[in-house]
């Protein structure tokens, strides 16, 4: 026989009809004889009724909208992550391979660029080049005449003028209008204009010191050809030379990074009958041989054409020049077959 405590504990299950038939019978037997437990059963039934009678609360207005607003907000965040990372099994390997590919590509490009960089390095390491040139100059000082010295310096200074890769052709004869100062500065042989021309002389004065060495060189060249006509006043030339030597060094220092590799130079004198016809022919010949930076100057009784030629084309060019007139070559022997050479062609009336 169960006591009241056990029966009271069984009453909720009895009401739910969850007791076994034996337990159910035992509860019913007890209830008949126990008013306390019977009362407890009634109270339990009333409690059940009270709980059943509890009303449901309604959600506040816009409850669903509020929830969905937050859900959409979350979905936006999620979609951003999904865009980049999900599904992981596909996107992560793609990202890994892409990263590796970009890294390899970057290394490859860097290495390829490095080779090109090495090609440029000799010209970008100005100090040794300049030093070498200076040494060369000092060695030659004892052997060469003053004119020869300026030739060597010309080689150095001429290179500094080489910036424009396009073919440049200026006619800077005394009568023609001079190009703008800036352009003049870029053009290499413009300073070859004899200092006797007033307007040109003023321009030349404004040129950099290195360019002035060229001017003195051209003056000397002119002196060799026609001493009486082309030679500038000795005092002026002397002054220029001084400036050239002093200022040239500072220019070399300040513009050292710009200095390109030193280009070999050759001077060819051509003696001809008709100056104007031959000048045209020589120009055609230069164009045919892919000459760059062709600059023509026509002082009285002669023409000076300066151009850059590929060394491999030089031999052929000279051979064809020989068919035009009697030629005389001056300049440094060319060792390499690659690269460019500065060619100064003096066409002199016979």
């Amino acid at each position, binding site marked *: 026989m169960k006591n009241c405590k056990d029966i*009271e504990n069984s009453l909720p299950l009895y*009401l*739910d009809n969850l007791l076994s038939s034996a337990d159910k019978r035992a509860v019913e037997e007890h209830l008949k004889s126990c008013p306390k437990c019977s009362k407890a059963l009634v109270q339990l039934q009333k*409690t059940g009724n009270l*709980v059943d009678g509890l009303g449901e609360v309604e959600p506040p207005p816009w409850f669903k909208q509020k929830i*969905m607003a937050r859900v959409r907000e979350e979905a936006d965040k999620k979609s951003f992550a999904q865009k980049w990372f999900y599904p992981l099994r596909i996107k992560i390997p793609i990202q890994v391979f892409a990263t590796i590919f970009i890294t390899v590509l970057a290394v490859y490009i860097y290495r390829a660029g490095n080779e090109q960089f090495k090609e440029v390095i000799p010209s970008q390491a100005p100090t040794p080049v300049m030093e070498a040139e200076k040494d060369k100059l000092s060695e030659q000082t004892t052997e060469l005449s003053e004119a020869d010295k300026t030739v060597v310096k010309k080689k150095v200074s001429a290179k500094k003028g080489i910036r424009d890769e396009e073919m440049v052709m200026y006619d800077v004869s005394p009568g023609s209008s001079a190009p703008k100062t800036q352009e003049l500065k870029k053009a290499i042989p413009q300073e070859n204009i004899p200092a006797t021309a007033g307007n040109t002389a003023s321009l030349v004065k404004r040129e950099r010191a290195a360019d002035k060495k060229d001017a003195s060189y051209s003056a000397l060249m002119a002196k060799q050809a026609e001493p009486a006509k082309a030679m500038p006043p000795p005092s002026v030339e002397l002054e220029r030379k001084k400036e050239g030597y002093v200022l040239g060094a500072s220019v070399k220092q300040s513009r050292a990074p710009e200095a390109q590799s030193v280009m070999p130079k050759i001077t060819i004198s051509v003696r001809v009958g008709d100056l104007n016809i031959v000048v045209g022919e020589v120009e055609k010949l230069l164009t045919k041989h892919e000459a760059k930076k062709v600059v023509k100057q026509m002082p009285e009784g002669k023409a000076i054409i300066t151009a850059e030629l590929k060394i491999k084309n030089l031999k052929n060019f000279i051979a064809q020049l020989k068919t035009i007139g009697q030629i005389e070559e001056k300049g440094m022997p060319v060792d390499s077959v690659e690269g460019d050479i500065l060619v100064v062609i003096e066409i002199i009336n016979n």
Partner: protein
Amino acid sequence: MLWMSNIIDNKKLMTADEDIEYVVLCQKGDTEAFGVLVERHQKKMLNIAYRMMGDYDEACDVTQEAFLSAYKSIKKFKAEAKFSTWLYRIVVNYSKNRLKQLRNITQRESFSIDDSGEMKIEGALCQSFAKDANPGAQMEKREREAQVQKCITSLDEEYREVLVLRDIQGLSYEEIKDILKIPEGTVKSRLSRARNALKGCLVRVIGDL
């Protein structure tokens, strides 16, 4: 009796999960499909939370958080149980966690949870019975409900949750077992104690039932 009829109703519900179609859509990224699930379950979720907490505003917050949490982890839902079971588990857990937080806050502030609870319960009941025509009966019913809710809130959480799920929400023992992840025998014994405890509380509060 409702306690009996609930068992039969829930057996029918267990046969098919009508939410699964929308759950699959949500899992495929259709946010709007979740709206259908919110529409279907918001009232029941809110009522579970409300009966667990006895505070309407807190219940609204907890229900929102529970829905958001459900959305975040909807891909983890494996359809091993009904979606509603899974959802109710979330709201019960959120309610219990929130109650714990509130208990800590109340302890710190030396504030009586019973007093505040009563006030808020009455507020919610005002909303619940706003449509009743007879003001006197309305007042009496509201007062009785507040007393019942106060007694429910006074129960231990483990008794409260089974009482709310079984006697108020009418879920089956099977569902309650799944929601609370406890054996069915434990559900029955807890429910038995919960009902007796509620009866004892109501006798103390109301007098002779």
